[in-house]
């Protein structure tokens, strides 16, 4: 019997304009927990989508049990023993554990009734053989996240998965649930099952993994035995040596006066005791892994999320902003991370998107002055170098970078003093990123204050004057101008 259960060799995948994976190797031994780490865009998800049959590889080969495997759609992967436990846990909330596990594969009696006895027997056997216990009659909606994860694991085990892929399994778990998950993984490992853990949490892989593969920019940096490496080494490999030249020079020497202060803000258990001070003329970076609560901070600043405790001060005065409408009146504007879902009116003309927040400026006595509206849009098209055939183009037809500039133009047209930018560079090309960074710096030089939220540590390190790191809703580091570096940000976000 071959030592490795799964081998992916020289996997290459390109998307228009991007090489997502460049000849990546991954080898998983029987009974191994293998961690795959890397920054956003390193290629982790793409590699797993190829393994699951969701994407087709351009080149390379996959071997299962030493034999070439043909995986061209998800059903192939399941049949050949690849079990994927998805992050969003696609289960039917109203059905029981048992019904979910056998959904779509029900055994029926001759009269067409679902044969519950057979299911139950199989379920008991499954649980017994792996030492797992979960009551089969409980409904999914009554289960905790950790228990739902267990259902997903049982589901793939029932289909005889040999390799179980878990994408960010611990991101939404608390400490106890995490321990329980690791315990389950160890039991299954002892029974000969292998795991691939995709994760951002570097400290965790030292608890559970046997080996770790580090990806960066679509290439495999290395595969290491956990015993022979350290968290510091893994982080260093993840970051590599990034070119610095895409970031504008930080010109801000002395901070201006405090303009927006948050003191001891709590939102349920999502945000715990959060404080920050944003000064005039600075870019304050706020970073953390996806789900760490950074977006919540942006939303609560503009009144789109209510907080239970704490105080917000604007220009030193206690204030309570309870809607985006009020926020804009007070000069605070948000660029939402979901550009298409909550940033733009995709089927509206560019000009109408720009004027949306300040239509009163172009509609004295209610009637809209269309000519002026288009003139203002034309000015922003020139100023922000938006590439578009005209101010009347529907924004749906613009590229991601240009769409983002349209949202920025709308914010600037409100004359906001405080700009909250949530993932402003998501899904846009490098050139557009550079332009947006440059624009951010120009704006702070004009005295505006920017809260720059990003899960791209490199960008926060390169652009922000100061940085705050969140993990699970709590601040783990506040870095001043001279301390801010990618390595420190990554360390604070991923290690306890």
């Amino acid at each position, binding site marked *: 019997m071959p030592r490795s259960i799964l081998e992916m060799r020289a996997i290459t995948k390109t998307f228009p304009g991007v090489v997502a994976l460049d000849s990546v190797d991954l080898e998983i031994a029987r009974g191994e927990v293998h961690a795959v780490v890397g920054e956003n865009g390193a290629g982790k998800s793409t590699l797993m989508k190829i393994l699951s049959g969701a994407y087709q590889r351009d080149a390379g080969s996959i071997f299962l049990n030493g034999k070439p495997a043909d995986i061209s759609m998800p059903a192939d992967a399941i049949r050949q023993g690849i079990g994927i436990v998805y992050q969003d846990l696609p289960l039917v909330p109203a059905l029981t554990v048992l019904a979910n596990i056998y959904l779509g594969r029900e055994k029926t009696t001759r009269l067409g009734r679902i044969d519950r006895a057979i299911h139950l027997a199989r379920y008991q056997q499954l649980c017994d053989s792996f030492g797992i216990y979960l009551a089969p009659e409980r409904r999914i909606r009554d289960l905790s996240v950790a228990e739902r994860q267990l259902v997903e694991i049982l589901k793939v085990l029932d289909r005889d998965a040999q390799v179980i892929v878990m994408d960010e399994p611990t991101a939404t778990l608390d400490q106890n649930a995490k321990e329980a998950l690791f315990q389950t993984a160890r039991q299954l490992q002892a029974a000969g099952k292998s795991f691939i853990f995709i994760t951002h949490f570097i400290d965790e892989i030292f608890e559970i993994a046997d080996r770790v593969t580090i990806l960066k920019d679509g290439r495999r940096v290395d595969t290491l035995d956990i015993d022979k490496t350290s968290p510091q080494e893994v982080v260093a490999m993840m970051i590599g040596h990034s070119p610095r030249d895409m970031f504008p020079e930080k010109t801000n020497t002395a901070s201006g006066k405090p303009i927006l202060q948050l003191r001891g803000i709590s939102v349920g258990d999502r945000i715990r005791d959060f404080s920050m001070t944003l000064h005039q003329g600075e870019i304050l970076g706020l970073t953390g892994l996806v789900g760490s609560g950074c977006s919540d901070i942006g939303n609560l600043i503009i009144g789109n999320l209510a907080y239970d405790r704490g105080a917000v001060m604007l220009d030193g005065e206690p204030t309570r902003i309870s809607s985006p409408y009020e926020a804009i009146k007070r000069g605070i504007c948000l660029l939402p991370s979901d550009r298409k879902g909550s940033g733009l009116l995709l089927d509206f003309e560019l000009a109408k998107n720009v004027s949306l*927040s300040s239509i009163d400026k172009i509609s004295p006595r209610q009637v809209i002055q269309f000519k002026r509206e288009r003139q203002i849009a034309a000015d922003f098209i020139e100023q922000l170098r938006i590439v578009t055939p005209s101010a*009347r183009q529907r924004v749906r037809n613009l590229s991601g970078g240009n769409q983002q500039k349209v949202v920025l133009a709308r914010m600037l047209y409100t004359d906001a003093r405080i700009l909250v930018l949530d993932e402003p560079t998501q899904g846009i090309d490098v050139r557009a990123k550079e332009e947006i960074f440059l624009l951010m710096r120009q704006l702070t030089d004009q005295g505006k204050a920017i809260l720059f939220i990003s899960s791209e540590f490199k960008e926060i390190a390169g652009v922000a004057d100061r940085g705050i790191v969140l993990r699970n809703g709590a601040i783990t580091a506040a870095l001043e101008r001279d301390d801010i570096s990618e390595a420190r940000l990554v360390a604070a976000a991923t290690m306890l």
Partner: protein
Amino acid sequence: MAMKRQENGQNRLSALMKSLSLQNMAIVYVFLILCVVLALSSDAFLRPRNIINIIRQASVVGVLAIGMTFLLSTAQFDLAVGAQAGFTGVVILLLIPVIGFIPALFASLCIAVVIGLITGAIITKIGVNSLVTTLGTLSIIKGLLLVLTDGRILRGATPELRWFGSGEILSIPFPVIAFLGLGILGEFVLNYTRYGRYLLAIGGNREASKLAGLRVDEIIISAFVLSSICATIGGIILLGRIYSASPLGGVGTEFIAITAAVLGGTSIFGGEGSVWKTVVAVLLLQVLGNGFNLLNIGANYQELIQGFIMIGAVALYTYQRRRQ
């Protein structure tokens, strides 16, 4: 400079071509073709009396459809407007003996505002969707009609009331003036004012509109109030035309109003709306019935054909959108 002007001219020309394209103007072309066919096959069709008649007959549904266009622009709708039109008649006839003519009219408009506020508030502040909410209000209003009339037809329209149905200004009947006047006003408000822009923006993307600083809930509620007022105006015209109020009056017209607004190109997903094309669509549906009479096909076929046209138009629209 000269080149820029030329470019500008070309832009304008292409914008004009686009706005006249089949996709944008299908309903108008269908209407015109139908009119030409009817004019050729029947001498009666183009007579001013016939045309005025068609518009007058369309006026009640038309006023409701104009209100519905405002709602659909924000991606909402109201199934209760037809019943509300009938309800208006009953309320006015019951109130006139008690408080007099003008106060009764005023009271019916106040009731409209209250109904709109409540419906809108349930939908925005509590978050029940508009299908369920307005099915409920439809049932409530129908129930109120039966309770208030005890199932009987109420008569006793005063001469002042009849004026709303058949009174004329410069020999144009009041219903025609109200319908076309509201159409022009509605088109202006929806596509040329700040308020109209807000409605369309909310229909296009409610979350984005909220984050852009629009008072989304309040604006949606106001659209329900406007639609409710339109329903009441429609109800006043209806009362003035048939002199009586029956417990079933107006019920069912909401579907023709929605059909017309959708045919006019107002997206059921919100974000796009045109009042004048809604007016054309209302007239198209009316002419269809009128044409059936003139051609002796029988009006029984009207709803049948209407259904096919509705599905055809929406299917075409959805298909084009998906292809983009």
